[in-house]
């Protein structure tokens, strides 16, 4: 589904964010991207979602080479992903319903069909009763769940979350992770970046046992973490 072959991403000002990274992710996997902050996790996610192009190497998304795609076709690739951003990127000038409506609008889905899907997405994250609420009135955990509802409303085949549990207390974090697992169980590929050191928290103990882990260290995949991968 996503294949990285010897990928390097260099930013003019700050040097290599990612160097010579190779891995592949199959459909339906749950993948953790771990590493300290600044290790290149966000860059890796941006490369996966075709937001950035690699400086060297090849990134294949559904067998399409991102480097060879025209700028104008990139938006259509991006629509295959549901993105959950570190800073949520909720729009504070509109209510929850309208926030979740945006990806559908981009896909040209409006009206009754859109409303049905928006309510289904809000229901899935437990915010159905808050559809008219403004995001600013929601708690941190609720805002995170709203961001998830927005990411899944267009039924993407891949879900990418950058530090989804970063600012949440443990109970909320467990809730959110359970939510992601539920999506994986219905066949969605889920990729989660987290700065927690491996093995420090409960869920990552589980992660290293059952799921693929891509551990980044200064822009390189650390081999020790890679070897822990077991499907």
């Amino acid at each position, binding site marked *: 589904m996503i294949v990285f072959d010897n990928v390097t991403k260099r930013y003019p000002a700050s040097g290599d964010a990612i160097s010579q990274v190779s891995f592949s992710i199959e459909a339906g996997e749950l993948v953790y991207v771990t590493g300290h902050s600044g290790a290149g996790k966000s860059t890796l996610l941006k490369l996966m979602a075709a937001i950035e192009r690699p400086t060297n190497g090849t990134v294949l998304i559904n067998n399409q080479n991102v480097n060879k795609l025209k700028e104008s076709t990139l*938006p259509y690739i991006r629509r295959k992903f549901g993105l959950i951003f570190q800073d949520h990127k909720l729009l504070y000038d509109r209510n929850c319903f309208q926030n979740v409506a945006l990806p559908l609008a*981009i896909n040209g889905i*409006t009206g009754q069909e859109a409303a049905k899907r928006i309510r289904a997405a809000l229901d899935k994250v437990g915010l159905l009763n808050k559809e008219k609420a403004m995001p600013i009135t929601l708690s941190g955990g609720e805002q995170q769940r709203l961001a998830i509802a927005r990411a899944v409303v267009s039924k993407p085949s891949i879900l990418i979350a950058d530090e989804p549990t970063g600012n949440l207390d443990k109970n909320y974090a467990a809730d959110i992770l359970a939510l992601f697992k539920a999506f994986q169980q219905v066949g969605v590929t889920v990729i989660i970046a987290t700065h927690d050191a491996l093995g420090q928290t409960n869920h990552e103990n589980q992660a290293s046992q059952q799921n693929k882990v891509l551990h980044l260290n200064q822009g390189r995949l650390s081999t020790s973490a890679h070897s822990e991968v077991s499907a």
Partner: protein
Amino acid sequence: MKTWLTYHAQALRLVLSRFKKNKLSTFLICLSIGVTLALPSTAYIILDNLNGLVSNVKSESKLSVFLSENHDDALVTTIEQALKQNPAIHSVVFVSKEDALAQLAVIDANKALLDSLSNNPLPDAFFVEPKVLDATSIESLKNELSKLDGVETVLVDGAWIKRLNYLLQLGQKVLVLLASLLGFALIVVIGNTIRMQVLTQQAEIELSKLIGATNSFIRRPFLYLGALYGLGGGALALMMTWCIILYFNQTVSAIAATYQFNFSLQFLSAFYQSIMLAAAVLLGWLSAYFSLSLSDKHS
């Protein structure tokens, strides 16, 4: 095709809902566009009406064709034929020297003067009314007629018509200049407004790009915004111009009445009204387009 329509309907709905939310500021922007457009359109209406008025003042623009002395009646007939067949001439009246003298003698004050003359000093003359009344065609007709055999001089009555025509030409040039300057100002005003809107929606634009919005999806609402500002401004300009003309007409009719003349300024025809609206919409759209291209370069 259906998705294409959906996208456009969606953008239009979005813009209209934003209008609804910001009624006052939308109205103010349209008002400033309207004022800017009302100025040249009022000037256009006045000039256009004056032009029409000038072409209506036929009696004042005759050519007098005076014949040389010592000619026979055959020559008079030839010239009359030539004049009547000239396509640029509307009508011809012949006044013989005897008739002219008789006309002068009607007035008492002239009698003593005429009695002192031994012979009739007046020439035979044709009074010609041209078909087209602008300065250049009258001038060329004059040149043409002076070349005719037996014609001594050709005089154009009402040189003021010529001057007025030149003045109107000058007026048209001023109008074109005024319209282009104000049009430029409009592009700047609308463009700047659109730019502010882009800035206030920066978060939404950034997010939309990240989750797969195409450039045209992002630009479309702003283009509609510009076009609708143009439409609103154009409609307000029509209303304002209509009021201005109505206001002017009270005085214009009074002035015309003192000349025993029935005249008032005519408002734009439906055709010109729709042209003006279309031009305003186009101007708004173009402003948005330029503004977006500029902000694209800076982001």
